[in-house]
């Protein structure tokens, strides 16, 4: 059953449907919030708020929008609220990322050990990205949403998301270069 039907089933009182839905998406949403907020306690707080909002909004749920898009849109908005509350709305959400010349350095096919080191390094590199670019990358990786959907989640244009994503990928590759 797809997400939208599960949500409709939950709206009809099927708790198992919600549990199924929750288990599908809890990891992605949690990691998105964790890596965007950079703080476990904050992520937990925001994570719960997101799902409580989903639960409370069930009566008005319509399948006109993709569930995942709706879910991550709520998560994005909650994150922005958190930034506002802490008086640190990242400027990267307002700025157009500086474009760049494509860097085609390739990651080597490496040993598992080296691969693990690269993964750890990648996490560090992700944390160094400007919030808006990091969000685009995380949404792409965690939610599997299309660029159009990510733009909807983030409340911006598809072109902006393309630009943010392009810049994020470039920065990550550049950041990982030392491990090659």
């Amino acid at each position, binding site marked *: 059953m797809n997400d939208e039907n599960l949500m409709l089933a939950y709206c009809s009182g099927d708790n198992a449907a919600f549990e199924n839905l929750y288990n599908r998406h809890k*990891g992605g949403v949690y990691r998105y919030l964790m890596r965007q907020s950079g703080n476990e306690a904050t992520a937990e707080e925001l994570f*719960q708020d997101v799902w*409580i909002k989903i*639960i409370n909004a069930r009566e008005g749920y319509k399948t006109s929008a993709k569930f995942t898009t709706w879910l991550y849109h709520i998560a994005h908005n909650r994150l922005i609220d958190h930034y506002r509350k802490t008086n640190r709305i990242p400027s990267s959400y307002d700025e157009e990322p500086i474009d760049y010349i494509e860097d085609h350095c390739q990651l080597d096919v490496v040993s598992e050990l080296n691969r693990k080191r690269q993964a750890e390094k990648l996490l560090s590199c992700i944390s160094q990205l400007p919030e808006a670019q990091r969000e685009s990358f995380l949404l792409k990786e965690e939610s599997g949403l*299309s660029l159009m959907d990510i733009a909807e989640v983030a409340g911006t244009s598809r072109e902006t998301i393309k630009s943010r994503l392009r810049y994020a990928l470039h920065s990550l*590759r550049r950041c990982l270069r030392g491990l090659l």
Partner: protein
Amino acid sequence: MNTEDDKLYEDDQLSSLYEKIDRDMPPAHIDAAILAAAKRKTSRYSLPYAPFSNNWRVPASLAAVLVISFGIVTLVEEELTPMDEVAPLAASEAEKVQPRIEMTEEVMPRKLAKAPLTAPAKPAMSQPSIQESTASDDKVFSQGQLASRNLDIARTEQQRKNKQATRKLTTTMTDQAPNAIARSLDASTSINGTMTTGIDAETTLPYWQYQNQGISIRLRQHHPDKIRRDVVARGFTNEQVDRIAQSCAFHTELKNLSTNEQASDIVYNIKEWTIYHQTKRVKLKTTEESAALDISAPTGLAFKSSMLPTSHNIKSGDYQSGLIVFDLTPTSTFTLTFTWQQFGEQHSVTMPEILCDE
């Protein structure tokens, strides 16, 4: 749907590497809290006594919450030393222990005046019976200065409600980390615990209890008049006394029921427990946070020592207990998710729809 254009912005190598990063997941107690909240919304959980299911209680509760508008959880002691053994606080000290009201967007907390309560540190002891606990309550009552008419009225009301509670509501709750426990216990035993709620025979106030093979968790409400009696002579202003007395207090008791053959310590940390009130998460205030308040030394020390420890290791056959005061309006309901470790696993159980009686 991803378009061809989207593929230009995919990086298989980075995606593959990203998947190697630890797949962090939310903690089990958060899972439990959210799933309980979801379930609550689709089912009408009713308590066994009829008065609380009356429709007028809902708007009344909402109105009361709007008036109070603050919610914070704090812990205070379970057993209160007779007042004649406690030096009353000077007025200036009383003001110190009354922190300024603070409010956040998240939980709108109000910090309570911290009752500078005294009780002997509870020594490790064998598991007491409930009767022993309530007997202690009665002792305090006999020493209280406000053995008030209100208490009699309240008890009469509770007895009336009690008559209506002709049966206990029993539901089966699933332990959140059952597999390993099931393996470690007798294979024929159920991994499910039992949730029971009803009216405590001694206090005539509601109780909630969860029990499985390894643990028993019991909450029973502490009567507001009893709290009032115990703090009124300790230097608090009338307003502070009223505020504390109007809080919802619950005696919490954790017992380690594991047997010698399968003995396993219970390890808990109240920082991991979660409370939901009207879909908002409320944080528990720890002993350390409370003790950090500027309470005069004798009462402050007693206050700290008498509170439910923030974390504790409960041996097989032993127990730990303490009073938890939720600064919620009477008639409020809340959901409390306990987490603990036992048998080498993390466990979580949610007590839904706990009602703070009037």
